């Protein structure tokens, strides 16, 4: 939009003469460019306020070197003020381009009503709408749960249709590829447990019980829990994002119209993969955690490896591992459920995919902690 040929840009200035008469001549000088400091126009506005109502504003642009949108915004403001304050802004003296753009900008009148949502709803109706929204969400979740149970039923009867190669890829994705991060986190959790416990146990000279504590905590609780939380962040989010993107790309519509149920085709293999892989990962995490505990016990509290091993195997029964494994399989369902649910429900925009992934992780972690609590109560009642 720059019309100037001069290379040196002068700072924009504004001069006027004829204040308080019926004809105010405004001289625009220098380069009116966005990046240069804007001239103080408050004085001009003040001068205009004091003019009689019939005033005409005319422009002289002999010394105007260059201009861009900053000049236009200034002029538009002046025009609006003129409409309100009763003076006429005559555009003849302005460069041709400026005149055309001003015409264009005022061609379509500004939308006054604003968006419908700007209207403030009464509190009660907002509360009501929110409640209905939450109820609808719950109903959707139940419907999804029902559909997935039906799909699982068809799987058991051998009627479910999905690609075996998809399942194998997913097994790899949720299994082998998760090993490094699961190793790291479980070893660290084992280390931390051992440290925290040792401070107390050392005062009784009972360091040997570090082995019991780490073993039981890992096998019953932390192995399953930490694996589930890692998988929620890693795989649950990925599921939601994958299915969400498929929704955005109409790939899910394409499945439906070709008679493939997205439930069987997309959700079932993901659920299966996590249900199968989570117990394996959990078992691995248990062992890595115990290893982490052993590093602390042996390295810092003078236990021998044999002592530590014997103590651990004495403290741990098969049922401790079994509880952890059952839980982790269950957590696998929860992670896959929230990931797939959010993915399938995803809207058709990039930001919807992002929020689907986020809410999948949040929902999975909330469900995991909730169900872990339930399991704790259950094992207490059954005293296992």
């Amino acid at each position: 939009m720059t019309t100037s040929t001069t290379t040196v840009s002068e700072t924009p200035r504004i001069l006027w003469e004829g204040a308080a008469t019926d004809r105010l001549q405004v001289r625009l000088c220098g380069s009116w460019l966005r990046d240069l400091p804007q001239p103080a126009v408050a004085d001009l506005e003040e001068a205009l306020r004091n003019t009689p109502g019939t005033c005409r504003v005319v422009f002289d642009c002999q010394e105007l070197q260059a201009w861009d949108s900053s000049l236009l915004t200034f002029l538009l403001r002046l025009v609006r003020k003129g409409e309100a304050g009763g003076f006429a802004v005559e555009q003849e003296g302005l460069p041709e381009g400026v005149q055309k753009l001003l015409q264009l900008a005022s061609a379509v009148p500004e939308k006054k009503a604003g968006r419908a949502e700007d209207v403030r709803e009464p509190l009660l109706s907002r509360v009501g709408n929110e409640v209905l929204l939450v109820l609808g969400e719950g109903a959707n979740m139940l419907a999804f749960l029902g559909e997935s149970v039906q799909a699982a039923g068809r799987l058991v009867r051998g009627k479910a249709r999905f690609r075996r190669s998809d399942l194998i890829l997913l097994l790899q994705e949720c299994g082998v590829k998760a090993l490094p991060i699961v190793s790291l986190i479980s070893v660290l959790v084992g280390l931390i447990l051992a440290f925290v416990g040792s401070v107390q146990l050392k005062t009784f000279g009972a360091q040997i019980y570090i082995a019991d504590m780490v073993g039981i905590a890992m096998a019953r609780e932390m192995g399953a829990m930490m694996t589930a939380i890692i998988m929620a962040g890693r795989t649950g989010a990925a599921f939601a994002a994958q299915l969400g993107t498929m929704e955005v790309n109409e790939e899910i519509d394409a499945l439906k119209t070709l008679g493939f149920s997205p439930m069987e085709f997309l959700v079932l293999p993901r659920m299966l993969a996590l249900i199968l892989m989570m117990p394996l990962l959990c078992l691995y995490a248990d062992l890595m955690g115990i290893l982490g505990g052993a590093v602390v016990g042996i390295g810092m509290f003078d236990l021998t490896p044999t002592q530590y091993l014997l103590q651990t195997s004495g403290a741990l029964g098969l049922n401790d591992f079994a509880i952890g494994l059952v839980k982790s399989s269950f957590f696998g369902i929860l992670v896959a459920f929230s990931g797939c649910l959010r993915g399938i429900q995803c809207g058709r925009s990039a930001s919807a995919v992002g929020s689907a992934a986020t809410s999948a992780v949040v929902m999975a972690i909330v469900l995991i902690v909730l169900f872990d609590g339930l399991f704790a109560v259950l094992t207490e009642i059954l005293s296992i």
Partner: protein
Amino acid sequence: MTETESVHIRAQNLTLAYGSFVLMRDLDFTINRGDIFIIMGGSGCGKSTLLKTLVGLKEPATGEVFYNGTSFWKTELTEREQLMRGVGILYQSGALWSSMTLAENIAMPLEEYTDLPVSQINELVSLKLALVGLAGFGGFYPSEISGGMRKRAGLARAMALDPDILFFDEPSAGLDPVSARLLDDLILELRDSLGATVVVVTHELASIFAIGTNSVFLDPESRTAIATGDPNQLLAESRDPRVINFLTRGEGAENRPEL
């Protein structure tokens, strides 16, 4: 009963709505066998929603869609799936399954709904790819090819089961003029050689006049269809200023191009 035999799809009193928001009401039109039927109208007037209703992705608020005289939304789910098997759809962006190669995309419906041996499926896949000018691209993933190629691959998948109805959602959107023209030619050829009925959602005037033999014009202001018939005839004879305005890019009736 020749007249009813030639009717392929019939919409009766269709109302399209999202919740309480009514998008279109009282839609009545018939699509004959061998028609290239254009669903046209301004942006956001409900063309794509109408398409979704016709192909069974969205249930209409009221009204019915008949395929060969069978009410689509009132039959059993299994029969509905059976009906859908005779329908191919090209989505706006192709909607190829991104985790599969082009060949796998096209092979999937064949593997699912036929008992053909693998070698024959492979042959069919190469044939479909060759028909849309993508011979040899079977091993590529959708992300590795251009948008125009994705569209053509989507068409190959839509044709996999030799459907007798093909739906196109904005086939020329995002294509350069030459590719759009080639796609139009392809649509005509497919109609002629397969004897299929074609339904196209578009607002591309060049395509509308080049291929359309029948149409419905949706008007967002009155929320209903305000014209039906051959688009070329509509252009020449319509008295409705809204239709004229659309078909002449806002030039008005006196500037109708010579046909």
